[in-house]
């Protein structure tokens, strides 16, 4: 099941729990993600898949357990057995190693596509403006938006906005890309252009974690699929395992319901 290159996993998740008030959304998650792996999180609404993704870059603070990137504890510092929240600078450094793409794109409306992509490198990483701009132009060209780089988000379609958001995340030169339902807010005819960009990144060997409802995409692009149900990993394995009919009973039930619902 694991990539057996012998190298340590890039991301390790151990005993991760998250509660919102009295409701426990994640009930103990253990997962390893290897370099160059594309991992898909699937599951019903409320299964905890988005929360799990948001715990990875500490947008949500886990209630218990830990996330490590290359062995480094995320969001917390350890001193003499006690854990405390990391300072802003350290948290910033860790977060930009795990760039995130959101369901609602979340482009900054007062900045052009180009400025959106340049913001992180210039403001956070202190990359010289000319260099950041060259990098941003290259990335926008890569996602097919070179001609639209001076447009404000309000002038772009949803699919274009999401591609700018992907370029913005890539501009940080992250070690992992986190996608939170990247096509759920798109009109059906715009889904394809965004999924193609993500599939291209997979081919280039980018490590990615994708929360998705696009089962066909998960089947085709993900190396590893994790099925979450009521806050636990109910099943996981290769896309072939999950979608090829050899998953466990809960997986098959979910996929059955899901396909019924779709048709």
């Amino acid at each position: 099941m694991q990539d057996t290159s012998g190298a340590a996993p890039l991301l390790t998740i151990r005993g991760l729990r998250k509660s919102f008030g009295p409701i426990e959304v994640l009930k103990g998650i253990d997962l390893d993600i290897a370099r160059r792996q594309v991992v898909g999180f699937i599951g019903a609404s409320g299964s905890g898949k988005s929360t799990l993704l948001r715990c990875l870059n500490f947008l949500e603070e886990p209630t218990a357990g830990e996330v490590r990137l290359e062995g480094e504890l995320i969001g917390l510092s350890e001193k003499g057995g006690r854990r405390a929240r990391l300072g802003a600078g350290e948290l910033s450094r860790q977060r930009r190693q795990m760039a995130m793409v959101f369901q609602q794109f979340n482009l900054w409306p007062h900045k052009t596509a180009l400025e959106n992509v340049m913001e992180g490198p210039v403001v956070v990483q202190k990359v010289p403006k000319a260099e950041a701009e060259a990098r941003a132009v290259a990335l926008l060209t890569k996602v097919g938006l070179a001609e639209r780089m001076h447009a404000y988000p309000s002038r772009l379609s949803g699919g274009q906005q999401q591609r700018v958001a992907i370029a913005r995340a890539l501009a940080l030169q992250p070690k992992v890309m986190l996608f939170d339902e990247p096509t759920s807010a798109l009109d059906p005819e715009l889904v394809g252009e965004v999924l193609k960009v993500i599939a291209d990144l997979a081919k280039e060997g980018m490590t990615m974690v994708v929360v998705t409802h696009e089962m066909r995409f998960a089947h085709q692009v993900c190396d590893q699929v994790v099925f979450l149900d009521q806050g636990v990993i109910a099943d996981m394995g290769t896309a072939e395992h999950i979608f090829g009919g050899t998953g466990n009973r809960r997986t098959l039930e979910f996929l059955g319901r899901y396909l019924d619902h779709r048709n």
Partner: protein
Amino acid sequence: MQPAYEWDFSIVLEYREVFLRAIGMTLTLALTVIVCGMALGLALYLVRAHSWRVVTIAVTGIVEVLRAVPPLVLLVWIYYCLPILTGLSLSGFQTAVLALSLYSSAFYSEIFRAGFQSIEKGQVEAALSVGMTRSQILRRITGPLAFQRVFPPLVSQCVLVVKNTSLAGYIAVAEILYQGQQISIRTFRPLEVLTIVALIFLVIILPLTFAANALEAKYRKKYFG
């Protein structure tokens, strides 16, 4: 039958120097109060939004009291009571700046609060995910966005500040209304003088609101096509 009132605006010309100096005083006072009030209002909002619960409750209380007290009471109270309580004696101008800044800061802080609260959480999360710190987010993302959204009420509040400067006359600050009253006492021409005072306020405020509307339309066109 009453004799017809004979309007005579010539006295206004006679006292034009006094009026000009009064306009200068009103503008100086208004500008100082706008700058101080806005800065204080922003500070009040930030403390209220990002502090311990006790501080938040205290600041909320201060804002509510400042909003409820009539500005004239605040002005007179600071002018007469502050020296008694603290031994600190402020000039009329300083008192007016302090009182009107405090008073308007409560309203500015509420306007800023509305602005910041209207910003979608996702905007902040996107900024956090690229590694921005709280202060970078405030300066580059939420600040500019909130400012644009609350621009119209912010301008309204500035207009109110300009008008409220006329209260400073109560403690003998030589602004427009105060000087107008002095002139009308001397000339027995209150109607002419008050008319001119009203016109001066119109001439100060209308360009302000026109400029604000034009600026807002420009922003809207630029970002939201």
